[in-house]
């Protein structure tokens, strides 16, 4: 087992068409970002709705949201992914099932499954953050809005949510970063995202350490730059007068 270090490996041809290994990484990164953003849109939308539902003064409504959160938080992500990828298509009506299994190309159907899975998985987490944000606001905010004659939807839309979002930017950022990291499970259902491309590069080139070092660096840079970006945003939108956000 002799190991030949070669950091130039990424510019070499893969032997598949005229692609270099770097092209593989770029394609993989594209999928990773695509999945993450699509899943995040689902998670942020549904998560906000469920988060509001959890704080609404109605037992049934908040109960539904609580059940959702417990269900999606206590089943491993990989099990959820297999359920969306293998099980759910079998439950679809016959023509939809045929469309999903036959007409779609395998990459698209894997992509759809991963996006739905990660989106709904992260929804549970976003929901909890939104709920925490709403509950962290001083009670006076809600009472004042009520006293002004606001209706419940107005209270949420105009008073509670705009403040809550600004408080929860740090935890939401870390959830967003988690989505990026979690996209790697897509490699287990054959989607060629960043991790899958890395594995393939390691196998094709036999330059295992270089391949994984590059992947690590990409994930690391992605994470750090997003984190720095969100820190700027956080400072910009900080609610004045609250210690929790370091406001002035």
């Amino acid at each position, binding site marked *: 087992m002799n190991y030949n270090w070669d950091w130039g490996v990424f510019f070499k041809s893969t032997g598949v068409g005229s692609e270099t290994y770097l092209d593989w990484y770029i394609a993989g990164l594209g999928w990773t970002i695509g999945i993450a953003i699509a899943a995040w849109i689902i998670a942020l939308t549904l998560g906000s709705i469920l988060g509001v539902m959890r704080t609404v003064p109605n037992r049934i409504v908040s109960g539904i949201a609580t059940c959702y959160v417990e269900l999606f938080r206590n089943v*491993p992500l990989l099990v959820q992914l297999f359920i969306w990828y293998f099980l759910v298509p079998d439950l679809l009506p016959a023509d939809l099932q045929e469309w999903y299994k036959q007409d779609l190309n395998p990459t698209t159907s894997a992509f759809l499954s991963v996006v739905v899975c990660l989106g709904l998985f992260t929804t549970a987490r976003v929901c909890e953050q939104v709920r925490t944000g709403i509950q962290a606001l001083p009670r006076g905010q809600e009472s004042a809005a009520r006293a002004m004659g606001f209706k419940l939807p107005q209270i949420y839309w105009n008073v509670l949510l705009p403040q809550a979002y600004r408080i929860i930017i740090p935890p939401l950022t870390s959830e967003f970063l988690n989505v990026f990291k979690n996209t790697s499970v897509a490699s*287990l259902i054959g989607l060629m995202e960043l991790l899958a491309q890395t594995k393939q590069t*390691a196998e094709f080139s036999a330059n295992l350490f270089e391949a*994984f070092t590059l992947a*690590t660096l990409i994930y690391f840079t992605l994470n750090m730059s997003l984190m720095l970006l969100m820190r700027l945003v956080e400072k910009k939108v900080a609610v004045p007068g609250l210690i929790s956000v370091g406001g002035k």
Partner: protein
Amino acid sequence: MEFDFSGIIPSLPGLWNGMVMTLKLMAMGVIGGIILGTILALCRLSHNKLLSNLAGAYVNYFRSIPLLLVITWFYLAVPFVLRWITGEDTPIGAFTSCIVAFMMFEAAYFCEIVRAGVQSIPKGQMGAAKALGMTYGQMMRLIILPQAFRKMTPLLLQQSIILFQDTSLVYAVGLVDFLNASRASGDIIGRSNEFLIFAGLVYFIISFSASLLVKRLQKRFAV
């Protein structure tokens, strides 16, 4: 489609073996992770700039990459590294490389928990220990860490539940944990969907009841 769950009962022994593997992975990951994490936390809190920066870099590094990447990488790389260290071929299986991966990865998360725990201890405790003439080691071992661990037990347990779920990722390197055992037994009799539902249900029941227990504990431990 029709569901038929009757095939699960004869497969239970195989599934149980998978669950034992899952629990073993979790237990070793948690124990190793807490030990390594505590050492890292102490390094991070130390006044030595080099140590604290190194530990900080370790934590940042592992927290910004996916666990699945670590598992896959270690699976492929550990044989090479062992060869460089020992100079001979030391065959190790997926199990060992996964445990190493879990320990090193979880250590980064446990480190942050322990650090927060230590920082939550009032400063006076440290001052009092110093006034009694304790060395740094004695102070940490006898005064600070015991109190910190008591405070952070709920968080440590929560992280362990997360690890319990994350052990399913060893599927990637073909280790037969609970999920993989369910997949395999389901495929054999052509009932993979039923086994998948069953696996999800088992994971759910265990994680859910464990987190309920942790919540109770949290109330009891609340100061």
